[in-house]
Structure formats: structure tokens, C-alpha cells
């Protein structure tokens, strides 16, 4: 792998890992506060899987550049994170959290599916392993969208409000990184435009079948992962507070 490709791959793995880490953080804020005990367990389980994926992506990066995953997670500043804005948004209500997880799962399943044929074997292997978990997530969140979308007027209203708020943000998942075309050319990652097409068709159909209105006025669509929302600073202040509390600590 030549140096520009390697650097592009490092950037891509970082973005993938950051997305999973921050999403897991928001999901885990629900622990102990879910509407039903069984769903508390299910969401904690999803958070755990996403955190596991973050660890895998940081690990693949580490194999390329020797970086320490914990340093990346706990000692990087907000401006250096490369997650999408969607995953930073405050957890909102149950509809907001489940919709975000659904939109993300739908993207992740399609992306992982495509990346199974990556020319970079570690990526292909990791994707194959994750795909089973992600399909389970998607099945779970997909069912929630239908149940809340077709439940009461109140639950439909909340789902629609969540969708209005997230639809523009979700599009960012398909904005390639500046050097991502290099990776696509090498067959290391799929072309996001193709993934997006499949995602749009799948999600719009399911959302509409669930009684939700689409298309929407797009609203704000983030175009770069170098900028974040106002929420990331505080999220990281919380997330990194223990690790940074004792900078001399070698082992946690």
C-alpha cells in the first residue's frame, strides 16, 4: 500500500471508529432509564456492539500506524474527532434514539456488506464478523420504527419529529472523506454513492410503510467531518473526564 493510500485508510478507519464510539456513548446514556427493562437490555447490547466495532476500527488503524486506541478515544480534542454530526446529537426521547440507531444500522449493514469484498483483507474480515451483529440491530430497530410509526398518534408525531430533525444529518454518512476516492479506486472501500442509493431506497420505503412522511425539506446537511455540533465538546468533557483526571496514570 503506498503512503497516500495508507494515510487515506487511516483517516477512514478513524472516522468509522469515531462514529461507533460516539453513537455508543449516546446509546449508553439510556442505561437504567429505558421505557421497558427488556429494551434497556437490548439498547445496552447495541451500545456494547457499537463500542466493540469502534475498538476493531481503532485496532486496524493501530496496525497501520501504531497509534494507541485509548489515546485516540480519551486524549483527542473535539476538533480532532472525525465522527458525523448525527451521532453527537443529544439522545432526545426514545423515538429520537431508535430512529438514529435505525438510520445508522441501515447504513452500516449496507456498507459492511459491500466492504466484505474489500481488497484489504483485515477490513473484509472485520466486516464479515460485524455484519451478523448489525443485521440483528437493524432487525430490531426496523421493528421499532414500524411499531412507533404505526402506534399511537403521539408515537407517530414523535417519530416524525425525530425524522424531520435527523434526515439532513443522516446524509452526512454518505459524504466521502477528502481522500476516500483513493481507497475506492483501490477497491478497499465501496463507493458511498452506491451505498447511499441502496440506503435511500430501503429507508424511505420502510419509513413510509411505517406511516412517516417523506421526502422532507432537507434542512442542514453537514458536508465535512472537521466541523462538529455544539454538543461534542461537552460529550467529550464527560467521556474523557476520568482518563484525563490523572494524566500520570499508565494503567486504567
Amino acid at each position, binding site marked *: 500500500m503506498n503512503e497516500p493510500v495508507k494515510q487515506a485508510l487511516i483517516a477512514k478507519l478513524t472516522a468509522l471508529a469515531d462514529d461507533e464510539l460516539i453513537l455508543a456513548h449516546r446509546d449508553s*446514556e439510556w442505561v*437504567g432509564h429505558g*421505557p421497558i427493562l427488556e429494551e434497556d*437490555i437490548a439498547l445496552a447490547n447495541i451500545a456494547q456492539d457499537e463500542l466493540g466495532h469502534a*475498538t476493531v476500527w*481503532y485496532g486496524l488503524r493501530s496496525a497501520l500506524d501504531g497509534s494507541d486506541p485509548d489515546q485516540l478515544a480519551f486524549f483527542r480534542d473535539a476538533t480532532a474527532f472525525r465522527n458525523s454530526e448525527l451521532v453527537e446529537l443529544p439522545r432526545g426521547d426514545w423515538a429520537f434514539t431508535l430512529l438514529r440507531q435505525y438510520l445508522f444500522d441501515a447504513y452500516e449493514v449496507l456498507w459492511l456488506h459491500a466492504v466484505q469484498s474489500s481488497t484489504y483483507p483485515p477490513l473484509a474480515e472485520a466486516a464479515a464478523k460485524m455484519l451478523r451483529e448489525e443485521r440483528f440491530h437493524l432487525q430490531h430497530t426496523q421493528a421499532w420504527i414500524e411499531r412507533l410509526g*404505526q402506534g399511537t398518534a403521539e408515537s407517530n408525531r414523535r417519530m416524525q419529529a425525530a425524522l424531520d430533525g435527523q434526515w439532513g444529518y443522516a446524509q452526512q454518512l454518505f459524504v466521502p472523506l477528502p481522500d476516500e476516492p483513493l481507497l475506492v479506486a483501490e477497491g478497499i472501500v465501496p463507493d458511498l454513492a452506491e451505498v447511499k442509493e441502496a440506503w435511500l431506497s430501503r429507508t424511505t420505503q420502510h419509513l413510509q410503510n411505517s406511516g412517516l412522511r417523506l421526502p422532507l425539506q432537507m434542512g442542514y446537511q453537514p458536508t465535512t467531518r472537521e466541523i462538529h455540533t455544539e454538543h461534542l465538546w461537552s460529550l467529550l468533557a464527560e467521556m474523557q473526564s*476520568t482518563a484525563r483526571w490523572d494524566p500520570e496514570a499508565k*494503567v486504567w
Partner: protein
Amino acid sequence: EARLAEFEARIARGEKIEPGDWMPEEYRRQLVRMISQHAHSEVVGMLPEGAWITRAPSLKRKMILIAKVQDEAGHGQYLYHAAETLGVTREEMLEALLSGKAKYSSIFNYPTLTWADIGTIGWLVDGAAIKNQTMLAQCSYGPYSRAMVRICAEETFHHKQGKEMVITYAQGTPKQRAMAQDAINRWWWPALMMLGPHDSDSPNTPTLVKWGIKTKTNDQVRQEFINEHAPEILEAGLTLPDPDLRYDSATGNWVHGPIDWDEFWAVVNGNGPMNKERLEARRKAHAEGAWVREALAVYAARKQQTAVAV
């Protein structure tokens, strides 16, 4: 009465009582109280630990903690099922919890103030729970006994992780050491108290022992807990906040100083540091989840109707 005699004979033979079997009303009542209280403890116990998932200092610790709290939720679920075999519904139990009528372990009315509290809870609180649960795994009621066997296995894992954490910090930087010591200082006495009042103040114990629900008294279990944990904590280079604590070579026991039972009863009666907040958190989650549960019910009813109509 013959049925009672037969029941007690079965227990004396070491047989398990199963859901369909005849049992004295008091046996049933005590079990419902204990199992639901145990289930509530798992669910409320998610709060003090769950709040630190977002602040865990490494990816590995974060993963371990989510998994642990998830296990606790699973234990709660499992125990609610065990209680349901005695004819009480989940809704009734939840209602009793949210109204403040049902109790849960007093230990969860103490706050988690630093990350070391997470390790300390694993070591001391799960350690105390395991002593209790190992005994309850011998319980005469089949579903509770089997639940305990399964739960004990997972708790033993949590206990090991917690111990490893605290020992790591005890050997860490000065700040980490201080944090670990502070946590031990705050959790030691509450851990002793969570095993219940002295035998002399525990009127239910003789009945529970006779019926094989409990096989040991509170003081016996507490002594086992201290005998295991006191030397391990001292060996880790930490101290215990009990100036009277000493090893008695005659009995082989670690003898502890007087327990502040006023504090225990204050906490049990609702005046612990976190009683209001824990209950409030559960009530809030329940109230904010009402629209979700309602939506599910309406959706399910509609699907069923459609199915019938088709």
C-alpha cells in the same frame, strides 16, 4: 396439619419446592418479598454503575462495565420471572417499587462518586451479594435456587473484575491509590450492612431457615464476607475504616468493630443519600416511557385484529 408436615418433610429431605406444589401462604409471601426485592435491587443497582459507562477511562473498562450493567438488567428480568411463578405480576411488583412500598438493597442508596467506586462495588458489593446468593442457591424453592446458580456464576465474574480493578489502582499513581482508598473507606461499612441486621434483630430468620429459604443467618454470611475480603484488601496495600478490626486466631475469624445501625435504619427508611434520587430516576424512566408502552400495546392490538380479520 398434614400438608404442612409433608411440606416440611420434603424440605428436610432436601427436595425442591416447585411452582405447582402446595406451600404455606407465609412461605409464598416471604419468597415473593425476597425475590422481588432482589429483582428491584438489580434494576435500581443499574443506576449508580450505569452512570459511569460514559466516563469509563479506557475502551476495555467501558466495554466491561456496559456488559456488567447489562447482566444486572438480565438478572432483574430473570428474578421477576422467578417471582411470577408465585402468582405475582411484573406490574404489581413495579408498582410496589415505584410507590416506595417495596424495598431494594440499601447499598444502592449510596452515591458513586469516583471511578474507583465501580471497582469497589464489584469487589465489595458483588462480593457480599455472592455470599448471600451462594447460600440462596441452596434455597428450597426451585426457581429461586436455579436463578441464584445462574446469577452467581456471572456475579463471580464481576467480582473478579472489580477486585482486579481496585488492586490495579492500589498499585497505581498516587491519585489512583487515593481514589481507591477513598472508595474502600466509603463502601466498606455499607457492604457489611447490606447483609442485614444482626441475627438478634432479624425476626424472620428462624422461619426462613426452618423452611430452607435461607441456610445461614445474616451474621454468619457477614462473617464469611469479612473473612474473605478483609485480608485481601489489606494485602492490596489498602486500609479498612474499622480501627477495631483484628484477626482472632482462636476462631479463625476477622472480628469487626460495632456497626452503625442507626445509619442502616435511616437508609432503609428512606433517608439515605440517594433514596429520593434513585426512586425519582425509576419513576421518571417509567413516566417518560409511558407513551412507548402505550404505542406498543396499540400496535400489537391492531396487528392481532388484522390477523383475525384476515
